[in-house]
């Protein structure tokens, strides 16, 4: 996630404290000297990871500190789940199977390893899904279960959650 704010004196320090208070993890702090430099304030970008559901609390805390958030950037795909599929994966249009997850917009298939078996035998594949939130991951897995039922594929889920 990316937060953009005006770099006024003291703002950066004021912004960093609440981030650790809500359990966030700062990945990078980027100063941008752009056109707006003329206007006394610099733009600063903070790239961070945030536990799910903490964004509202963080924004609240930042407001209290008098920090002005200009823009909240795109959320990143923090949740990862690896599953195994068995069945006639090619005959049942593997790219459609992948597409149904990618189409959600909030979850996507980031890795796929397919083992091709003898002709007409069922094939096995390992598929890694990433998503922005746990809820989106659950939704993606639900979609995959539905597809599996329809295409008569066996889905092996991990014992532990994403």
């Amino acid at each position: 996630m990316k937060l953009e704010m005006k770099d006024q004196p003291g703002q950066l320090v004021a912004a960093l404290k609440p981030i650790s208070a809500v359990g966030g993890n700062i990945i990078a702090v980027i100063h941008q000297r752009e056109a707006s430099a003329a206007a006394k304030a610099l733009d600063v970008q903070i790239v961070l990871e945030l536990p799910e559901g903490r964004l509202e609390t963080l924004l609240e805390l930042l407001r209290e500190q008098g920090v002005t958030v200009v823009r909240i950037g795109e959320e990143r795909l923090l949740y990862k789940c690896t599953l195994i599929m068995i069945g006639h994966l090619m005959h049942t249009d593997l790219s459609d199977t992948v597409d149904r997850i990618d189409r959600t917009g909030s979850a996507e298939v980031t890795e796929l390893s397919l083992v091709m078996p003898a002709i007409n035998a069922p094939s096995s594949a390992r598929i890694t899904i990433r998503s922005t939130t746990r809820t989106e991951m659950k939704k993606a897995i639900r979609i995959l279960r539905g597809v599996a039922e329809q295409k008569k594929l066996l889905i092996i889920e991990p014992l532990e959650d994403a």
Partner: protein
Amino acid sequence: MRIAILGFGSVGQGIARAILAKDLNITVTGLADSRSGIIDAGGIDVAAALARKGNGDSCGTPGISPADVVTKAEYDVLVEVTPTNVETAEPALGHIREALGRKKHVVTSNKGPIALAYPELRALAEANGVLLKYEATVCGAIPLIHAMQEGLAGNSISRLYGVFNGTCNYILTRMAEDSLTYEQALAEARELGYAEADPTYDVEGIDAAIKLVILANTILDMHTTLDDVERTGITLLTPDALRLAEDLDCTIRLIGEIVPKAGVLRVSPRIIGKEHPLVVEGTLNAVTVEADLAGELTFIGKGAGSTETASAIIGDLLYIHDRYVQGS
């Protein structure tokens, strides 16, 4: 303490051998297999009955039926160890009702009556002032039911999951170890006596599902039936799938899982880290219980076998003996 045993196969004979080998203060006064029975208030010659069975003969006299033993023998506890019927639970269910009605305690390894009729049987036992115990129905030698009912009394269970079927665990262990196909591993399990001629009940996850129903209904205050369990077996697994899991330092095991609050009852093959405590070898069973006060506990042990299952039966018998049976 006097007991009558219905069923003289693997489990029944295991109980008989333990009684002969150890000084357990248990006398067998009634015994039946599918075709014969013995009733002797003075105590049956158990060694002779085992010998007859060993020769391929019936254990007793052809004219005496299991129903005769239940209704006519003099015993404190009925030990019901006949084959499981998941559709009707009969004839075991009728025999258990009859014994409880006669104010006799009942100990069983038979999953049918417990999975299908526990609330009714428990009420009947209570009304008659006797106990109904069934430790051997879930995970053989592992005292899981006792641990949850006694040791963990007062805890709330948020999740319970594990390996409940030794046959499937053996097949999956072998597929992972030596890249065997499902069919090859199943053939091997049959040869070693770990799988029945018709393995459906095990490999389709039905056996594990029944055990979940028993735990859910008798310990977790749920009201479920076999149909409520979301169930996938292991018959479609490929060596390739196990290799794909292996690449991630994982393997695949058939896991039964209950999440009481979410109403989840599920048996399915799952990807699991190789270092996970539930990854046990061969025919072992393993169950993890997540409890609010106790935290996480994992039980590992033999889920089947003549002597191992007899261990659970005898534990139940002595529990009853210590609390209820006066005198010898």
